[in-house]
């Protein structure tokens, strides 16, 4: 009840219009709202918003259970999730090898629990109180296949390339952390294959 009252009185400090959801940041909580996207037809829009909201709330809790820091969820209603605000620094701004290695350990835990994050980038992570928090599970799903886990790592490696000139070292550090996962070797091998695949397909089409 107290929670509700506080919500009504506050104004968001910041509104972030992401590609997939609107994030309203208040003093001590965050609302993630999947608003209607007018560019999509209603049928598809509804499917995506509902499925993603439900699955995100579920996976945030599941991730915490396996020891991956995530915000506490206060409420889920319709296309809106209300959760704890994690105050800290975006990983993107303080990225270093040690943090990338730590991140590797956490992703290993997620994968061990069959959780595919779907969007691991330094933008979606916050460093707070000596811990790396996963704050966005908007594109997450359950899957135990090596392929999905490989794509998961591929996305992170690509985001490193896009953002940091010393991405190679950050990637190596991540790999050393991720190696705590029993299937690490298989997944890493697959991630390399995935990187080569897009180009391979193109080449095959061209030189056929």
């Amino acid at each position: 009840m107290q929670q509700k009252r506080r919500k009504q009185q506050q104004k968001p400090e910041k509104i972030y219009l992401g590609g997939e959801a609107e994030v309203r940041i208040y003093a001590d909580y965050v609302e993630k709202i999947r608003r209607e996207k007018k560019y999509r037809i209603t049928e598809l829009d509804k499917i995506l918003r509902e499925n993603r909201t439900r699955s995100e709330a579920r996976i945030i809790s599941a991730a915490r259970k396996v020891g991956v820091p995530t915000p506490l969820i206060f409420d889920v209603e319709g296309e809106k999730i209300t959760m704890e605000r994690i105050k800290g620094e975006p990983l993107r701004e303080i990225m270093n090898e040690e943090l990338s290695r730590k991140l590797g350990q956490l992703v290993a835990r997620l994968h061990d629990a069959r959780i595919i994050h779907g969007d691991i980038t330094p933008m979606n992570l916050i460093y707070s109180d000596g811990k790396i928090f996963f704050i966005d599970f908007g594109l997450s799903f359950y899957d135990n296949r090596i392929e999905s886990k490989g794509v998961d790592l591929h996305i992170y490696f690509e985001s490193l390339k896009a953002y940091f000139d010393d991405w190679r070292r950050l990637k190596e550090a991540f790999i050393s952390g991720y190696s705590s996962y029993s299937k690490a070797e298989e997944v890493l091998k697959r991630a390399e294959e995935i990187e080569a695949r897009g180009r391979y397909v193109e080449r095959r089409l061209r030189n056929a």
Partner: protein
Amino acid sequence: MISLGIEGTAWSLSVGVVDEDEVLLIENDPYIPKEGGIHPREAAQHHSERIGPLIKSVLSKVDKVDVVSFSQGPGMGPCLRIVATAARVLSLKLGKPLVGVNHCLAHLEVGRWKTGAKNPVTLYVSGGNSQVIARRGKRYRVFGETLDIGIGNALDKLARYMGLKHPGGPRIEELAKRGKKYHELPYVVKGMDFSFSGMVTAAQKLYDDGVSKEDVAFSFQETAFAMLAEVSERAMAYLDRDELLLVGGVGANSRLAEMLKVMCKERNAKFYSPPKELMGDNGAMIAYLGLLMFKHGYETRLENSTVKPDFRIEEVDVSWD
């Protein structure tokens, strides 16, 4: 300064001429497969027969040429080799410098030139390519791209399966306008990457199960284009950019452009797309990038003019604004 550009990375064969201010001329002589998809050797055969007359025709309409530009890649090896050979011969014959350019970058730069977009996120969609690109410092970076096939090839594949003729994209677009019922298809967005091949298979199955061509086309476009709009928006949010530029042959699809326009409007961003004749593969874009690069000190020596079928946009050093 006048630049002549030769494009022929896939089925399109086109020669264009530009100066600093405008496109002076574009002449096209595309390869059109009699049936099925593109056969690289047939396309190359077509290019080798038609490139001579096409260049002659263009030269008869311009007073002079200062730079000879050609698309060096990415593309189909056999087609690229025809284009490169023609460009070398022309450069030697006219005694003018040669500039080999990246085909994807040409799409992007001609788009910026003609729309006035400054530092946009670019969605580049064609047969073989589907990428979300943005500039960071002296390089362009691919922030998201297809994990398997390009959107154009996906549309063509579906079109062929439903017995439609080449080019499949425009035919799917026409059918989709008459579609009414949406059937769910695999929506695959992973970070800023995406995939279409599972969707093609699922759409083919819908067709096998008796869903009308119109509804299959409609469902396919709505799903695939929503994915492209979502990744474009993600990139814009991620990079904090308020401009989106749409380029590439599939960019001519009016439903895709409409969705992107709506998305941009909702986030107060500007949407840009070049005129239709510069949207698909064309010689003018090659000529323009060649001109831009030459003015910034680039020139391709004969020994460096071999084709690059896997030429990535990231490989180009960008020294202009």
